[in-house]
């Protein structure tokens, strides 16, 4: 940009016209105001059909990402759209092709599908409800387990989410939802239902527990009658039908091993890295969730390797970990998947380079009963590693935030 002096500096004029200072706003927001705003956002976010401004392809990028091609898709409240996690559409299509195998209903293979035993085990534990209203299908299946998970159904415009949770949490959920509106009771598929009204045409219905789980359905479908119509089109189906209804972007258990292999290609693996542990899990995954899980496992392994090397005085091994993490921005899954989470790897890589890994608490959570918990260590939270802690601390029990080892 030209450095030639101008008589009028437009950015200075802009700055003079700035309508709001974050610092001034912050000073004017009391703790109670902030708590109310936090509770409001959580309440909005917990409504599954909360409209997501699906410009996520750009919004989900980490700062400084140089990739191109993001398209803000817009979409107002009326459209009630829920964005997919992380991956851009092109990436989804490309990766999905890796996981779709012949033999899916309607797929290239045509015939009867053959599902892995692991997939069948997941399905057998599941209520396996499908929306049977014309035009509706599953558009999203996030990572889930036999006793917890979530499917999103859509007819191309409207959406309905079906969650399942452990039966032991049913009472807890009932109490929570009772605070939303006065519950209405009914019967669906032989189960007692409890429906609450979130307002603005948004409803949620819980079915009484069935085996080890209970179902909760939520949606904003244009009014109560429309909601009831789709709700009452839910039908239990057999294992093959249920698995066959999963969208192609889903990584099924039988495809998981190959998917993990694909995601690990081009990534330097830390000593002792156990890919089999990732490959052997039974759960059905959303692709972006699996990509993050794979990336986290590698990054966590490298940091643990670095810690061990430093403790043992093995400078070469420590340097190897530093270099591996420094190159994380070039790992294929990081370059391909537009997931801002991956920028965390760069942050930790800088800490390793500086020899100052943040091993203190990431922060503190104060509960209204006066108890305060430290959560950490920061580096594990940053990378999504296992082994994080939540420790109760005194009001002044702050921990050091950085440990240079």
């Amino acid at each position, binding site marked *: 940009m030209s450095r030639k002096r101008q008589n*009028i500096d437009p950015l200075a004029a802009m700055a*003079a016209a700035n309508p709001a200072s974050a610092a001034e706003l912050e000073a004017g927001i009391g703790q109670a105001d902030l708590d109310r705003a936090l509770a409001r956002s*959580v309440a909005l976010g917990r409504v599954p059909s*909360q409209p997501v401004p699906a410009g996520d392809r*750009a919004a989900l990028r*980490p*700062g400084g990402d140089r990739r191109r091609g993001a398209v803000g898709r817009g979409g107002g409240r009326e459209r009630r759209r829920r964005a997919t996690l992380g991956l851009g559409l092109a990436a989804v299509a490309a990766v999905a092709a890796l996981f779709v195998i012949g033999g899916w209903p309607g797929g290239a293979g045509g015939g009867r599908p053959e599902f892995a035993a692991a997939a069948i085990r997941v399905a057998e534990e599941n209520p396996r409800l499908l929306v049977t209203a014309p035009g509706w299908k599953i558009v999203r299946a996030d990572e889930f387990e036999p006793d917890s998970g979530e499917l999103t159904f859509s007819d191309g415009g409207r959406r309905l989410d079906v969650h399942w949770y452990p039966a032991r949490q049913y009472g807890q959920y009932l*109490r929570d939802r009772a605070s939303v509106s006065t519950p209405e009771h009914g019967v669906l598929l032989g189960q007692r239902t409890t429906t609450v009204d979130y307002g603005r045409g948004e409803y949620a219905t819980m079915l009484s527990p069935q085996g080890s789980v209970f179902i909760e359905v939520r949606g904003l479908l244009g009014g109560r009658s429309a909601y009831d119509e789709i709700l009452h089109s839910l039908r239990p189906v057999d294992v093959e039908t249920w698995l066959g209804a999963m969208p192609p972007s889903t990584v099924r258990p039988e495809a998981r091993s190959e998917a993990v292999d694909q995601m690990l290609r081009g990534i330097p693996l830390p000593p002792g890295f156990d890919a089999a542990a990732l490959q052997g899990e039974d759960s059905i995954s959303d692709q972006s969730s699996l990509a993050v899980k794979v990336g986290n496992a590698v990054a966590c392994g490298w940091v643990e390797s670095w810690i061990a090397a430093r403790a043992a005085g093995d400078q070469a091994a420590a340097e190897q970990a530093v270099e591996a993490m420094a190159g994380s921005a070039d790992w294929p899954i990081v370059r391909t998947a537009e997931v801002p989470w991956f920028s965390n790897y760069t942050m930790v890589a800088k800490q390793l380079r500086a020899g100052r890994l943040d091993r203190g608490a990431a922060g503190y959570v104060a*509960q209204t009963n006066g108890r305060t918990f430290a959560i950490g260590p920061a580096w594990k939270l940053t990378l999504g590693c296992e082994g994080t802690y939540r420790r109760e601390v005194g009001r002044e029990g702050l921990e050091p935030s950085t440990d240079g080892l």
Partner: protein
Amino acid sequence: MVGDIYPQMPPTDDRGRAVADADFRFESCFRDHYAAVLAFAVRRLPDRATAEDAAAETFAVVWQRRGLIPAEPLPWLYGIALRVVANQRRSGKRRQRLSDRLEHEAGARADAPGPVDALHRRDAFSRAFQRLSEGEREVLRLVAWDGLDTREAASVLGCSAAAFRVRLHRARRRLAKHLEASGHSPLERPTRASDPAEEAS
């Protein structure tokens, strides 16, 4: 406040711990950046109440993505907020125009020596600013009002840093031209340190 806001606070098994970590990550992000996101919305919407709605919706999206909040989330948050604001503008329910707001605020903050000068500067700036395309205005807002550097602003808009620099250069040039044409009072160029986009480019 975690135990009160998230009544489904899970048990202490591995899955529950992962969810708890995400809840904590969300709350930290919220408390650290709510004011910045609210300010971002206030700068683009006609009134405080609408901006608070936009901030709430932005963090509702973040809540749904709370397991994937990056360690340095502000550009990511602004990217979400930008699209929430766009939805708000498209809703058709807000009749007050941003230009009205801008004129009012510019007049109140122009640091002019007297009310006559302030009015003059406000009107001149507003006229010049409104002659830009929305895309040009947004490029300038991200840098001059939100304080982002080139790479951060580019990530908000989903373009490359190089492309953003070109767009910023053009927007600055056009705004300067319109300011001159509208009789805006000359301003001294600030030091380079107060020009984050150029510092980073």
